[in-house]
């Protein structure tokens, strides 16, 4: 981890000093992150790819404004989020987005679904393709404000503070949205999990 950070700092210095080709190498570890971040906002895959390319080009053009004391991944994520939001504004009608913004004030049902005759998803069930597909669909169908927080935190594995910073939210709001996102997904995926065979006993409280 430390070695990777040192290498990144060195790359940044060399690029700024004129070795522009090295930007390819700098960006490589973050391709997936940039794509998923834009996808979390625009939802459409073709649009997300185009947006991710734009975000990377924009990062290249503005590399001179990057402060060495900041974290490159956070800076890049902010650019990706802005690119996604720009596209969303173009694509979405004002009426639709205002509904979404008011969502948080409403009382929703954020209680998980019980699984009565079931202990744990066996590992082989996690390998099933249809479960992955169901999860992708469920994430895509989350309300925007929940999907964005969930993507950064649980897919890209940012911590709460990094997620809050990238989205311009306070950490308390991130925690609430994350909780709701996780519960909504649990509820939606229970029907898929129920078809799984029960796992053997004694295996069920394993740590993450």
């Amino acid at each position, binding site marked *: 981890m430390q070695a990777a950070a040192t290498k990144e700092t060195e790359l940044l210095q060399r690029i700024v000093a004129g070795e522009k080709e090295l930007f390819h190498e700098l960006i490589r570890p973050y*391709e997936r992150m940039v794509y998923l971040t834009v996808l979390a906002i625009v939802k459409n895959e073709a649009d997300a790819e185009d947006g991710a390319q734009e975000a990377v080009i924009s990062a290249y053009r503005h590399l001179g404004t990057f402060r060495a004391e900041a974290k490159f991944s956070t800076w890049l994520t902010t650019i990706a989020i802005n690119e996604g939001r720009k596209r969303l504004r173009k694509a979405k009608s004002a009426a639709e987005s205002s509904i979404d913004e008011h969502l948080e004030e409403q009382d929703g049902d954020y209680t998980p679904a019980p699984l009565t005759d*079931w202990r744990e998803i066996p590992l082989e069930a996690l390998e099933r393709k249809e479960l992955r597909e169901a999860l*992708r669909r469920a*994430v895509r169908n989350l309300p925007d404000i929940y999907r964005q927080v969930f993507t950064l935190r649980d*897919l890209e594995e940012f911590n709460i503070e990094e997620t809050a910073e990238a989205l311009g939210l306070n950490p308390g709001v991130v925690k609430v949205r994350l909780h709701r996102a996780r*519960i909504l997904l649990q509820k939606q995926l229970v029907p898929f999990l129920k078809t799984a065979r029960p796992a053997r006993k004694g295996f069920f*409280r394993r740590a993450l």
Partner: protein
Amino acid sequence: MRLACKHVWGHISEYIDGSVDAKLREEIERHLEHCEICSAILDSTRNILILTADNRTFELPVGFSERLHERLEKEIESSEPDLEKQ
């Protein structure tokens, strides 16, 4: 004091993240020992998170990287980046 299931559900996300305080954590764990419903909810939620973080679940489109670097190469060739500190 025995926690109600509903109370446990309200803290599932923070419990998974390890951000509940020690006292509440202990109460939740005591509850989980005798409550199969909450244990199953917790396990299923955790497993969803494991599946989410698995790179095979959310993959990049085929050829994404090649197209990105091709476009980037054109950009690098055609323009000077803004390398002046602002």
